[in-house]
């Protein structure tokens, strides 16, 4: 199978990649673009470790072809914050011990980021339901839920302050 040229937009930059039509986005991101934040945990779209944001939707990048995302806007964990200016979710996950081994964390935070845009004032139930596509084997979710609710509160407070 020959490789083809695709242009994809990742974290605000346009990238040229050569990929076979069967190449999965997660492999392009990790192996060609060195974005190793999204992880591979199941390859059947159950675990969510590979979650990225595509055109404003949470997508499991292990079950989408790179060929399908040409021209679309992709955001990975690497695009959410910088070491000097971390995203409030990244800070809250640390503050509330919302991670242990860290393997699910990039997908969790990327999904939570989208969830809070879909629903800026979620209840605990909303968070639990909205995060149910992302598996964690370490935390039992209690502190993940806490982290996301704390991030929502802080994001809303700073939004109010700005208004």
């Amino acid at each position: 199978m020959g490789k083809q040229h695709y242009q994809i937009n990742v974290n605000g930059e346009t990238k040229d990649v050569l990929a076979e039509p069967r190449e999965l986005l997660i492999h392009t991101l990790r192996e060609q673009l060195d974005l190793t934040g999204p992880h591979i945990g199941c390859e059947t779209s159950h675990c969510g470790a590979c979650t990225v944001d595509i055109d404003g939707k949470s997508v499991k990048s292990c079950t989408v072809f790179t060929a399908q995302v040409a021209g679309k806007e992709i955001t990975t964990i690497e695009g959410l914050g910088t070491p000097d200016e971390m995203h409030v979710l990244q800070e809250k996950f640390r503050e509330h011990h919302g991670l242990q081994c860290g393997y699910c964390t990039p997908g969790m935070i990327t999904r939570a980021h989208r969830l809070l845009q879909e629903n800026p004032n979620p209840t605990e139930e909303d968070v639990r339901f909205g995060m149910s596509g992302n598996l964690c084997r370490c935390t039992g979710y209690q502190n993940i839920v806490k982290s996301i609710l704390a991030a929502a509160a802080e994001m809303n407070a700073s939004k109010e302050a700005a208004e």
Partner: protein
Amino acid sequence: MNDMAPSREERIEGLKGLGSSRKRVEDARFTQGKGNYVDDIKLPGMLFGDFVRSPFAHARVKAINTEAAMSVPGVLAVLTAKDLEPLGLHWMPTLAGDKQMVLADGKVLFQGQEVAYVVATDRYAAADGCEAVEVEYEELPVVVDPFKALEDDAPVLREDLEGKMEGAHGPRKHHNHIFTWEAGEKEATEQVLGSAEVVAEEMVYYHRTHPCPLEPCGCVASMDKVNGKLTIWGTFQAPHAIRTVVSLISGIEEHNIRVISPDIGGGFGNKVGAYPGYICSAVASIVTGKPVKWIEDRMDNLMTTAFARDYWMKGKIAATKEGKITGLWCHTTADHGGFDACADPTKFPAGFMNICTGSYDIPTAYLAVDGVYTNKAPGGVAYRCSFRVTEAAYFIERMIEVLAIELGMDAAELRRINFIKKEQFPYQSALGWEYDSGDYHTAWDKALDAVGYDELRKEQAERVEAFKRGETRKLLGIGLTHFTEIVGAGPVKNCDILGLGMFDSCEIRIHPTGSAIARLGTISQGQGHATTFAQILASEIGLPADSITVEEGDTDTAPYGLGTYGSRSTPVAGAATAMAGRKIRAKAQMIAAYLLEVHDDDVEWDVDRFVVKGNPERFKTMKEIAFASYNQAIPGIEPGLEAVSYYDPPNMTYPFGAYICVMEIDVDTGTHEIRQFYALDDCGTRINPMIIEGQVHGGLTEALAIAMGQEIAYDEMGNVKTGTLMDFFIPTAWETPNYTTDYTTTPSPHHPIGAKGVGESPNVGGVPAFSNAVHDAFRAFGLRQSHMPHDHWRIWKIANSLGLHG
């Protein structure tokens, strides 16, 4: 005293030492996607390996044709057992004293077994190569039931062992038998059972499941032919042990092997053993001269590497009419699959199953375990527990419930009257352990009070009546558990793996400016060692935890240790850390005395400094002492400030806890709702309460999974029915309840800081708590024992078999 100087309390707080809920130093990289897991490693020219796996559970391999595969673009090599045989690597030793095929040698013994290893330029080409390998199989009769495997006419699974009636752990009784392991007094226990007022008997099955960390197993092997050095990065819970094993089986001298565990995405026991992927990748790197990466996919992981449990535990428990337990008998049939690849200490082929007298003062007991080969994947690892402790805890906590039914007693009261009393510690158990410490009654009463136990029982009784009147279709279950763990393997006198004593280690270097690096023989997989071991050290040497780097996992730099599993890191390496810290302090004391111009005995330690006794104005801080150790010529004292400790624990530690689960069960749908879960843990001295709570939440959720739905199931042909996350249950945030955590503190008397370990307690105690809740809901309708996992269908079947569907 200078008013601006921090108070003693402020100095203690500034260290972020023992007891501080210090935030984790690991988190910055993980939250930003900058972790470094094995699949993130990319080396120049790196190749990718993948396995051809057997579709059959038992078959003869008649021929393997690799010609077509070799013509697939990108495929560079296909390895079969024939290629490994000249190197003596077609079989490898297991940690349990058995051996395991690296690649199918004439036959396969379980579905998914490794048959050939394809090396290619990338993972897609490797997968294409695997598709193109042609294997001719001849199917053989399959045995998945360990009891049928022991019948006279059962097919011979391990032909390599035919005629060998002496195994690694004593005589073999049958061609599919592995070992018999016994503890306690057989005749005395049978006598007690024979003359007891009450005997309850039950078969308790703890089903086959899998640790399933979110990151599967994998490695990158790189043979540097110029320097003759083999480096293997991998998901290793025991990097030093892997190095030694690789050296022993490959003949490469140990100094020429470097094993590195980078960040590990959860282990839970899955990543303790050695797998064919490691061997094949190393061989492939030697053959091709290029680095070779092998990463399991989830199906490979669930089907082939390291199952857990699969213990059939037949129990008899004897008591007086008043409920005082007089004896316990247990015979376990242990299904080990095609090869015995348990990761237990050598002298314990059934792990610490002999902790199965639990928290109870049982004067007489007997345990026998028979290991059996079947056509299932090898393993038998300790999935978030010390070796077989979760099986033992589940067994005794079910037997207590069954005895309570037999006696018509309240199960909480039955436990209370049989607990080992506080004043009985150290307590010698009938099956051979010396429990170091405990205060079970205090923990139990605290737990029952916290949930309002008496009120709950009243509510339950009212619910049963309402159900009988047809006013509700929901029942209430109260799941009780008091568990005792045995962790921190272990004393070298009785604990080794492949002859390697199970001590652990810490090496500390204090830098001139008063910061430090500590290296340990363990390896974190999410437990937060870089955070907590720095806290132990901060309290020992008076330098802030924030100034201490903790490094693990590189065998070229870390001192030798046996790794992280069985909750052994804090009990063993944590002790080594404290002891190495004390060596630093002992030297620092001499330096301080010299600088203060007094005798060594005239200074005393105070938080972060040595002060002249009776004159607190005169002191030297550890920071000052560190600098002096590098720049002052002190008579009789070597420059520098370093220490290493290899800690051989005198005993295991015995964390315990009281868990109560309150569960609503819908009789018509078999669904459940966890209304409340209260978990009291006593892990001795608490290093970081935030991390302890996180460990408890996570362990309880794994327990929830195991008890309520997770299993590795096989059909009669040996097909794995639960090979993906579609079928293998992992709870999401939606199914997982909130937990209430609590604690008591009974320090270990022999551990330097009194810590006992906690990571596995919630799994050990959680499984019986969830399962007992299900059983308890149906107790009033006559349920005695129903096997896990209690998924909706099985709960519905319980209700149906009890006639509750009208």
